């Protein structure tokens, strides 16, 4: 017997929460309301830091806009961009965590690594969805 419940929706709460975190962190670091993490400060060259803030900010903002866009196709295209920008942004945090903290950084490091992996998974899903939309329309 097939399951009668079909889970749908473009605003998956966990994804929206992570995009919001990304946006908030990007804005906070850019505005200088809080210093960047000490691990990033220790490893990343000075000019890479604003780039990291920008990646966080733009990926979070783009992803949130995509989730609320009425046009599904454009929403998917923008969501994919958000995932593409978010993944290197996370890598810029994951690498310093493990470089500085080693295995002590496994808590935050694992969380962020799986977040980045989920982004890549989502990119693959969206690409498949867009291909299907193109085939059907």
């Amino acid at each position, binding site marked *: 017997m097939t399951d009668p419940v079909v889970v749908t929706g473009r605003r998956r709460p966990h994804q929206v929460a992570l995009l919001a975190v990304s946006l908030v962190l990007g804005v906070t670091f850019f505005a200088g309301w809080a210093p960047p993490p000490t691990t990033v400060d220790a*490893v990343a060259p000075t000019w890479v830091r604003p780039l990291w803030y920008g990646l966080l900010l733009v990926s979070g903002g783009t992803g949130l806009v995509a989730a609320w866009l009425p046009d599904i196709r454009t929403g998917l*295209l923008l969501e994919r961009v958000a995932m593409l920008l978010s993944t*290197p942004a996370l*890598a*810029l945090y994951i690498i310093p965590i493990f470089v500085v903290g080693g295995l002590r950084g496994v808590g935050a490091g694992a969380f962020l690594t799986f977040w980045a992996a989920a982004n890549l998974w989502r990119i693959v899903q969206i690409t498949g969805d867009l291909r299907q939309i193109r085939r059907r329309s």
Partner: protein
Amino acid sequence: MNWGQVLSVVGVLGGLGGLAALVMVPVQRRKMKVDAASVIVDSAIDLLQPFRQRVEQLEKDLTKVERIVHDIRTELAAPNPSVDRLRGIVGLVSRNGR
């Protein structure tokens, strides 16, 4: 290569890749719209196909009917000995009848 350089490469490549993807969004959107429009046109052509076939059939029928009408007209216009004979008889009868 130290970790700082690794982060620089990741940051630059990620940033450029993401920006390129962002710039490509309107292009991809337009392409998807064009694809959708061409599919709609194809569907419309498919829907019109039976009507087109019917019109072609009716045109063929009309050509046949026109040919038949032309044949009848030609036949009627041609001299017909039996009709001429009957006309002569009718004329004779009407004259004698007077």
